[in-house]
């Protein structure tokens, strides 16, 4: 599903340059559930941004389902993000002026899916995430857990092959966090490939596989943070 070879990411130039990733190699199988751990500044989010095709590596190869991402045009990456990748962010990143339902439908709007189909799909996902009652609420009128559920529904809406979750429980209390994790585990059980970024061991345990980033390098297995 995902194959990463010797990935480097450098920000800035010369004296001031920062090496965020220093030669990461990684394989994630279809249906896998990988937790990426590490302290802040270890390069977790940089890795996720590159995997999610919203950032590009400085060196190294990245194959997504056999496609060399580096060779993709900007439009090709847009397509990949839209159809094959679902993002879940720590601070939800819902559009504040759109209702829960409209937020969920946004990726479908960009995919050019007709309104009737969009409404059907978003209704399904609202049902799945238990938000049917909140469909027309704005994000500001929802609790943190509800917002993250909307974000998850939005990530799922185009049936992506990869879900990238960057600290999905980071802004939530532990009980709500558990609820969100159960939801992700359920999705994985149904066949979704998930990459989860976290610095909480309890959250990482839900995953099938655990990798740790340390100063831009990979160290297998768990490490307390």
């Amino acid at each position, binding site marked *: 599903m995902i194959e990463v070879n010797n990935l480097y990411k450098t920000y800035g130039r010369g004296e001031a340059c920062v090496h965020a990733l220093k030669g990461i190699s990684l394989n994630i199988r279809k249906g896998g559930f990988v937790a990426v751990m590490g302290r802040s500044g270890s390069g977790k989010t940089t890795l996720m941004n590159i995997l999610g095709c919203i950032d590009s590596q400085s060196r190294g190869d990245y194959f997504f389902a056999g496609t060399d991402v580096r060779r993709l045009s900007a*439009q090709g990456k847009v397509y990949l*993000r839209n159809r094959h990748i679902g993002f879940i962010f720590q601070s939800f990143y*819902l*559009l504040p002026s759109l209702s829960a339902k409209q937020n969920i439908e946004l990726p479908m709007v*960009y995919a050019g899916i007709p309104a009737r189909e969009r409404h059907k799909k978003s209704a399904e996902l609202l049902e799945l995430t238990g938000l049917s009652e909140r469909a027309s609420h704005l994000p500001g009128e929802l609790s943190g857990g509800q917002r993250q559920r909307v974000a998850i529904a939005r990530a799922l809406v185009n049936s992506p092959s990869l879900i990238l979750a960057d600290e999905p429980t980071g802004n939530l209390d532990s009980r709500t966090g558990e609820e969100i994790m159960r939801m992700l585990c359920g999705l994985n059980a149904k066949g979704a490939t998930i990459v989860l970024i976290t610095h909480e061991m309890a959250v990482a345990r839900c995953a099938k596989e655990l990798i740790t980033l340390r100063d831009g390098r990979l160290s297998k297995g768990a490490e307390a943070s």
Partner: protein
Amino acid sequence: MRIFDYLYVAAHQLRKNRLRTALTVLGIMIGIASMITVISVGNGGQQMINDELKKFGINRVWFFPNDVRGPSDILVLSDVGMLENVNDVGEVAPSVYKKSFMSAGSKKIVSDVVGTSDVLFSMEQTSFLEGRPITQKDVEYGRKVVVLSEKAKNELFGDENAEEKKVSINGQKYTVVGVEKEEKSIYSSFFSGKCYIPVTTFNTMFSNKYIDEISVSAANTDSLDRVIENCVALLISKYGEGSIKIINLTKELSNAQNILDIFKTVIGAVAGVALLVGGIGIMNIMLVSIKERTREIGIRKALGAGEHHVLGQFLAEALFYAMLGGLLGLITGVLMTRAAGGILGIKTEVSKGAALLSVLFSATVGIAFGLMPAYKASKLNPVDALRHE
């Protein structure tokens, strides 16, 4: 994503910042409103000038004694016959004026009384509320008949018919034979509001042998300059150099036309500047809006919005500002045109062409000034945009 989706999002954004939207729209609105007003009032003025030309004939000229030389002791009735014989002359009409007391029953007024001939009425294509013009026979026999102005008739007789009734002018009894219909236009106001009697009668009454003006029409428009030349030569040979003054309506009107053109150009330029400033206002607010919504752009891009989606969204917003301004400007322009028409007393109408032009123009301004900010937004890097605080 369809056009409708873009417009929906744009409308939503604009509704969220009402004051900002109103201020941004104002510039375009002023520009379009003044553009429409200029075009419409300009066209109205043009139309009016053309109508005047048609009414009085573009082939007409007036000769007066040159007053500087003192009391008029030139131009007599026989000059009319003399000028009629000049080559290419169409018609020749004499006029002589005096303010006179008029009365009917207990009503008394003061009005301009003009001594003239039947020719004047055919030259000016006078229309009548009642009765007839002065005829050749009236002039020939020096009959005491009068054609009243609409105003004089109303003042003397009210709503009653005036035809066949008697009025007294400076103590002498006259029979009303007709009432002139008043035309509401700038040039004709010089001529209207006067009462007409046969020129022969006039000269007898005031023991006068001179006339105040002679108007001459050319048989056709092309020969007007030649006719003027010949008539002037004839009059000068009779009365001497500098004795005659000429008013050439065609020249006057072309002056008016020039003033109108200058007016149109100046106000048009102001309208253009207003539109330009309005456009810059839109661009400015778009840049602010994009800065404020950088994270939103990042989120949209992460969810699979292509460059064309972002470009389309912000262009739609700029277009929305411009079109809203254009629409409000169109409405304001129509109202301003009506007001201006009322004040200036000319017939104005906002043409479909002007309306269409203004809509196209504001759309163009929106696209032209929205393009740069929208392009900038579309090129934002998703990660940088997401990180933006």
